[in-house]
């Protein structure tokens, strides 16, 4: 019966309704134009949406969502489409609501250190808008020059500077939301801890399954007086890992700590040719410390000593902006570089307790050999968030399946040592079948309660986060799938 429903959708009158809301220019329906929207950053999964709607205001979003609700059409929110877990992957016969035209910075209140933005605002525009006055927006995903704040909110994105200052959720104070029934609510405020449940905190990281954020109130921070980046290179990766543990153990919390292995060092040297990562190093460690000048000077010295003690071959430091950016450039280009090394790459972002680093890297190496695929490792070492990049060629039949299996083994390994499936990219379409590795049936059922409240008809971003029998086979748990049958109609 449900399948019949799908086939019966007569799109023309519905498209007319969307046009009435956002104008003809705000609706994309030509097949070739829809191509752009077939996938997000996880390009191996593709599905063309039936129609794309580009609203400019909260009210337009609400009207568009109401049209979907009235016509029982599933919809997916999309920001810049840089997500790496298939969060913005369309489902068959869906409407894609794209925030690309919602790019206004609505309010800047420097004295209260708050900024209000529309969801389509690009991450680093926020910093640009306030940096003149000495402020910045802390979460800085490597994709910051292209990804949207709405996408950051939905994924609870992190970045290389999140070790000390936290991820997106720690910087979002309030949200204006359009719920899946088209109603508009305000949660949180420009003041933290308003009475009532913390729906802001619940919404951040919900991957577009609870509604669309149409206004976002962000906290901005004062730029540190002094910032220093240290680059240490090692002849074995364990020594880099040990340095990370020792730095933390010494009581220093750097703004960020990143490790890249030999394969990724060479990849970025090939691509961005920074000439500052030694190609023969087994690993490099990048550490950024900030604070008062005296503090940075003291911590720099201590960190250098720790790295030297752990066998660092050489240590480079940079205080001025230009050199600092140069040292970071290679790290920020790591994914792009992987794309140059091999026709395709598949990235995971499991998290492990920092202390398990050596063991897990060895296991990843073993898996790499077992499956016969090269894996480049870059990771947020300070918080144990790994980004193994599995290099492969998608045109080889069966390669993707193999690589996904390898990626799955890495995720299971992360969970086994006490970690998580995802540190910042989200579960999306990509990792949902592994959720039972980490959560029991009851855990998942309880999370589904939340979805049931916000999204009772299951129209908002169906088929993401939670395992379903159709896509995950036995991995999905039968009981909660049964209870939430309605959610999986599409």
């Amino acid at each position, binding site marked *: 019966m449900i399948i019949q429903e799908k086939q019966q959708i007569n799109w023309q009158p519905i498209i007319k309704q969307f046009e009435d809301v956002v104008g003809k220019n705000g609706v994309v329906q030509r097949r070739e134009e829809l191509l752009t929207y077939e996938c997000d950053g996880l390009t191996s999964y593709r599905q063309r949406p039936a129609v794309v709607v580009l609203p400019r205001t909260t009210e337009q979003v609400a009207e568009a969502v109401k049209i979907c609700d009235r016509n029982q059409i599933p919809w997916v929110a999309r920001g810049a489409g840089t997500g790496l877990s298939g969060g913005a992957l369309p489902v068959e016969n869906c409407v894609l609501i794209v925030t690309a035209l919602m790019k206004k910075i609505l309010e800047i209140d420097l004295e209260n250190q708050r900024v209000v933005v529309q969801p389509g605002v690009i991450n680093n525009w926020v910093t640009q808008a306030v940096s003149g006055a000495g402020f910045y927006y802390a979460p800085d995903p490597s994709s910051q020059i292209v990804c949207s704040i709405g996408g950051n909110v939905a994924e609870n994105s992190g970045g290389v500077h999140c070790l000390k200052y936290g991820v997106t959720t720690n910087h979002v104070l309030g949200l204006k939301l359009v719920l899946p029934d088209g109603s508009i609510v305000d949660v949180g405020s420009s003041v933290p801890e308003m009475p009532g449940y913390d729906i802001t905190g619940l919404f951040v990281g919900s991957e577009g399954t609870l509604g669309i954020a149409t206004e976002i109130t962000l906290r901005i921070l004062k730029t540190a007086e002094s910032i220093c980046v240290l680059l240490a290179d090692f002849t074995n990766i364990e020594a880099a890992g040990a340095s990370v543990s020792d730095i933390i153990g010494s009581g220093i919390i750097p703004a960020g700590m990143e490790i890249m292995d030999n394969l990724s060092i060479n990849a970025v040297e090939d691509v961005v040719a920074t000439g500052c990562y030694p190609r023969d190093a087994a690993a490099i460690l990048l550490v950024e410390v900030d*604070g008062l000048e005296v503090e940075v000077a003291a911590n720099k010295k201590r960190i250098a000593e720790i790295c030297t003690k752990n066998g660092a071959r050489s240590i480079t430091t940079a205080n001025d902006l230009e050199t600092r950016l140069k040292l970071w450039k290679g790290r920020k280009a790591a994914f792009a570089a992987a794309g140059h090394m091999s026709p395709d790459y598949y990235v995971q972002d499991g998290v492990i*307790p920092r202390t398990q680093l050596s063991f897990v890297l060895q296991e990843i190496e073993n898996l790499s050999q077992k499956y016969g695929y090269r894996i480049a490792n870059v990771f947020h070492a300070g918080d144990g968030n790994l980004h193994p990049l599995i290099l492969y060629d998608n045109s080889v039949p069966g390669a993707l399946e193999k690589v996904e299996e390898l990626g799955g083994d890495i995720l299971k390994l992360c969970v086994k040592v006490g970690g998580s499936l995802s540190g910042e990219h989200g579960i999306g379409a990509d990792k949902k079948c592994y959720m039972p590795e980490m959560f029991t049936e009851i855990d998942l059922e309880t999370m589904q309660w939340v979805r049931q409240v916000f999204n009772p008809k299951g129209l908002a971003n169906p088929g993401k986060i939670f395992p379903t029998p159709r896509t995950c086979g036995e991995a999905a748990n039968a009981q909660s799938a049964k209870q939430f049958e309605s959610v999986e109609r599409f």
Partner: protein
Amino acid sequence: MIQETKAIAQTLTDILGPAAVRDWENIEVSQQKHISETVSSGTTSTCIVYPNTQSELAQVIACAYQQRWRVLPCGSSSKLSWGGVAKGVDVVISTSRLNRVIEHAVGDLTITVEAGAKLSDIQAILAASGQFIALDPSYPQTATIGGIVATADAGSLRQRYGGVRDMLLGISFVRADGQIAKAGGRVVKNVAGYDLMKLFTGSFGTLGMISQATFRVYPLPEASQTVVLIGIGDAIALATKTLLASALTPTAVDLRSTAVVTNLGLGKGMGLITRFQNITESIKQQSTRLLEVGQTLGLQCSSYTGNDEAELWQKLAEQIWASGQEPEIICKIGMLPTAAVATLTLLDNISHQQGIGLIHAGSGLGLLRFNPENALNCVTKMRSHCQSHSGFLTVLEAPISFKQQLDVWGYSGNALDLMRQIKQQFDPENILSPHRFVAGI
């Protein structure tokens, strides 16, 4: 009613044994008092049950669910009376025997503990490894982890470290139907699944009973120094603004009302109390720079280290929390930070410089304490002031008769339906802390 309570106590005794159940007559007087302050009806006859393990806790709640008993979760019950008044309670469930450390991952800077563990005990364990949980809540000696999470009760340290929500990495809880569920994990970064940690933080025991929590911990700072600036409101406002716009990195920036400054014999006027905790070189320089700001603005300046500093902070906390002769009224407030000094000035005016007030200058969150005399008028005025600066006022502690005269929560937003539906989904029979939360949830 009494008979019913006896029957409930008997049923629970059958499940957990006599040592786990205490009926009303055998409850300590102080705790009787806390419970009475929480429940409206004169019928405060109830029993307390003390499960010893998470699974015992689950059994008790499953039983309550079957019998439709109204449950009041509690830790050591310091803040039990905070918030709304319960219409009636059939059983109080205490986590005080669920007080074990599950795992302290020293190198990973995380700790997982049971909900009934006292923060002070956990801090002592962490201190042995040079670490701490960066929370300085009310009643720090007795507050339990579950109670702190359920009330989202953080203190001055939020300036540097954020609130409870920012520190909570994972939770386990027993749902209203007695099933044990969890969310989050034990690693510092994790986006798998919905963030139920945030949902439970500040939910006042209305969604489930927290059984375990994992916190991010921090290295204990090497050194500490506190700078106290005192003077008239305008100068204090300017000093605060200069401080917050500077590159200094204090761990606490608190504004205190005139009455606090007077009571502690610190001087005359409003106080700006700033704590620096960092390496020695850094705190020295930061203190010097702030003292210079104070001098330029003609403020009375002093600085504290060592025992003097610890004593100062102890006394500051007592100003809000020490039990007085009469029941006092304690409120949590929030407003845009720029309105903070005006808020304390208003407090000084309407309370004839008697009102105790604290505002964390960075976040705009704070606490007020009034004498019950004329309190309704003060609370109403302060609330409308806070609301006009995007904030709120919630009455935490007050005599029941006072709480019954107004809406204690002061929620003014448009998400009530959503909140009600969340409650309905998590606790369909409304057995957990019924009617105590926002809008009678």
